[in-house]
């Protein structure tokens, strides 16, 4: 632990899949891959931010690391609490692998790693005084001296900004911010080296949020804690984290120092997240990047780059050179067609209602125009070949030949992003990202194979 070069926590290819069961025999028919191969290191005294949309698996990653849930695969090496310097066993397993700890080791691990939860209102037993809730950890780990427990907890409550008298009060008597302070006390009371903070401030008011964040910073400095800070809020991440890992659909798409990520994001998803931070400058012409659609289901993640279904910078196939937003729209149309989610009939009825005519007599051109408007497609694509294919596909669609239209769209409009899985690429100084745009050779290769089809 004294060696600053050795990480306190090393997560390697961590996976957490939830089985999906069906039928009376509960046969497993698939798995929701909440976390699918995540790797990173956390060094002593460092705060690593884990950021992403809801449902991207960041909380699952946190609870698998701390073994609140059992991981499906991968390893989590924890080198704190006097475990430093151990080497691998002969069979390749590591004695510090949290996922393999037996009951005794796990209990010792609990003293070295704790967690703070998102919702302060439900993270305390309502029928226990907060003092007892905090002191319970001491008791669980064998401190039988009741008075000593009380002294320690009262002292700690004062350190986190409450009073010793609060020991005998019940959770409902505190505000959210106060409860989060008590939650910090609970996480600290066993003197851990590592704390997982799962959205610790997202349920709090802005002013309280700032107080808690500065308290976390102070305590971290004072006790040399390492933190895994899980959040969906980039502005909070910027305040507390030394390094940031951006997660999308169970994978890390970019990781690096906080300044690098914020000044020079290398992944389009990070760009989109950053653009969501409100800008206080009213003269700023900065336009937010709007991510359309929902996060795809983790039980059936998209092929290639998992972000390609929503990426605003999705790569175009070699033969086209369209406006980027038009290209995105074309792909959206294609994806919706593949999913059989375009209902021409209801578009026709919609147009009929708008123009007050009979659905039978709506001209096909009006329906086509409506579909284009629906998908933000321009009236005319800049590339004539693309335009020809698109309007041909729309014609067939209006003729109720969705099958053929979909086939045409699938054949012509392809992107290397859906075929090649990007590798994490190093940009130097620990900044890594996985996007085909950053891999010129692979990108070109993919384009070549795509045009071969």
């Amino acid at each position, binding site marked *: 632990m004294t060696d600053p070069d050795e990480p306190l926590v090393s997560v390697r290819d961590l996976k957490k899949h939830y089985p999906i069961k069906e039928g009376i025999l509960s046969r497993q028919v698939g798995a929701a891959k909440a976390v699918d191969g995540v790797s990173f290191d956390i060094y002593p005294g460092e705060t690593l931010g884990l950021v992403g949309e809801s449902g991207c698996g960041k909380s699952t990653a946190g*609870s698998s690391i*701390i073994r*609140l849930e059992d991981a499906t695969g991968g390893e989590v090496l924890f080198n704190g609490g006097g475990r430093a310097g151990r080497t691998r066993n002969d069979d390749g397993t590591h004695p510090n692998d949290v996922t393999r700890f037996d009951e005794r080791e*796990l*209990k*010792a691990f*609990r*003293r070295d790693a*704790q*967690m703070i*939860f*998102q*919702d302060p209102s*439900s*993270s*305390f*037993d*309502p*029928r*226990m005084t907060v003092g007892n*809730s905090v002191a*319970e*950890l001491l*008791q*669980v*780990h*064998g*401190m*039988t*001296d009741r008075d*000593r427990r009380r*002294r*320690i907890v*009262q*002292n*700690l409550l004062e350190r986190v900004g409450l009073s010793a008298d609060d020991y*005998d009060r*019940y959770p409902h008597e505190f505000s959210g911010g106060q409860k989060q302070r008590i*939650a910090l006390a*609970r996480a*600290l*009371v*066993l*003197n851990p080296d590592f704390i997982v903070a799962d959205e610790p401030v997202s349920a709090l008011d802005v002013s309280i949020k700032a107080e808690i964040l500065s308290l976390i910073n102070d305590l971290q400095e004072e*006790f040399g804690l390492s933190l895994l800070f899980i959040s969906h809020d980039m502005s909070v991440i910027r305040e507390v984290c030394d390094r940031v890992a951006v997660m999308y659909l169970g994978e890390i798409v970019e990781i690096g120092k906080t300044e690098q990520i914020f000044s020079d994001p290398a992944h389009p998803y990070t760009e989109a997240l950053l653009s969501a931070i409100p800008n206080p400058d009213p003269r700023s012409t900065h336009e937010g990047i709007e991510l359309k659609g929902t996060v795809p289901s983790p039980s059936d993640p998209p092929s290639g780059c998992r972000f390609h279904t929503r990426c605003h910078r999705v790569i175009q196939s070699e033969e086209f050179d369209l406006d980027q937003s038009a290209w995105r729209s074309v792909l959206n149309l294609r994806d919706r067609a593949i999913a059989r989610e375009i209902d021409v009939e209801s578009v026709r009825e919609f147009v009929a209602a708008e123009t007050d005519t009979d659905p039978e007599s709506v001209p096909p051109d009006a329906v086509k125009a409506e579909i284009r408007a629906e998908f933000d497609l321009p009236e005319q694509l800049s590339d004539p070949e693309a335009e020809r294919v698109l309007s041909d596909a729309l014609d067939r669609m209006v003729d109720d030949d969705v099958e053929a239209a979909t086939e045409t769209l699938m054949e012509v409009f392809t992107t290397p992003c859906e075929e090649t899985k990007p590798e994490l690429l190093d940009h130097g100084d620990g900044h890594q990202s996985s996007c085909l745009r950053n891999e010129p050779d692979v990108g070109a290769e993919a384009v070549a194979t795509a045009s071969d089809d």
Partner: protein
Amino acid sequence: MATDKSNPNFDQVDWDDIASNSGRELSTNAIGTLISTGVLVAILLYDYFIVPANSATFEAVGWGYDVIPLDYMFAFTLILFGFYAVLPLYQNPRMTRYYWKEFRKNRPAVVSLIWLIAIFLLGVLGPLFISPTESELFRKYQPPIWMTIDQNYVIECVGTLAGGACAGTWQHPLGTTQGGKDILTMIIYGMQISMKVGFISTLIAVVIGTAFGTVSAYAGGMVDEVLMRYVDIQQSIPTLILYLLIIYIFGGGLWLLILLLGIFSWEGMARYVRSKALSVTEEEYMKATKISGASSYRIIRHHVIPNSASSIITDITLLIPAFLLAEAQLSFLGLGDSSVPSWGQLISAGRSDLSFAPWIVLAPGLVLFLTILAFNFLGDALLDALNPEAETESE
């Protein structure tokens, strides 16, 4: 590092030392229970081995009360009740005051509580000091104080005889039975029987039901499936037929009835507690407790059960009246233990005299009715006090 025990700094605790030397810590409640149970066992052993078979247990100190096996079970139940239901109220004065404040809003429930406490104290202490009533055939069918009876029915009128009618006296405030037994004394003795039935059966049902419900909810998966299917199976056993079969084979007895009532009535409680415990286990503080390194036993005992307490307690207030009624019904049908003076026995004994001596049936019947009503009122108020959300939902 020498551990200075007065140092209040959490970061200067030698955990390796503490974790390796940890002994078992007993709460006041556990210590109290152990000591009291020890005393009880000592008395039991003394009664069994030293006291001659046909003399009373406390003969040596000049007290003629003979302790029967059921009394030991009852005493043990009372010890548990005292240390795990009453003492915690004293230990958490602020919570107690809060619940009392909520509870007090419900007037009928407060009256019910007073009634039940009176029944409890009279039932537990009365028989220790009031000697059982003897049969005095000359004094049969004495009316209660405010009633009279045609003198043809009585042999000797204890009160005043006027105009061919015998009036009641304070000697027998509630009158006497056809055997000349004092009804008030019998009702007080019946209170103890009812308390025994209520407390012991309920203890059995609560222990099994809560264990099944909470473990099933906390463990989930296969354990849940097996436990709850077992509950299904047990629920389909016809308890009455089983009871008839058992008294046919072994002969009836109050203890047998109590045991059977307890063992075959917890299924509903298990389900009820499970559903509450399921929602409790989803709370975030469950995760926080798991992360603390606490054992499953500790989590269930200190977090799941206390937070499911509202369900457990309200279910108890439904179980007890059901037990009292079951005992009375079986006694009335002549299937109970005829050697104990329960309310049901008294009612059953008086039914043939209903036309001219209705008090024999009415007095114990009324007490039984009021007691059951009181439990129902109490249950309602407890549900509201312990679980304020339930009240707002129902409105």
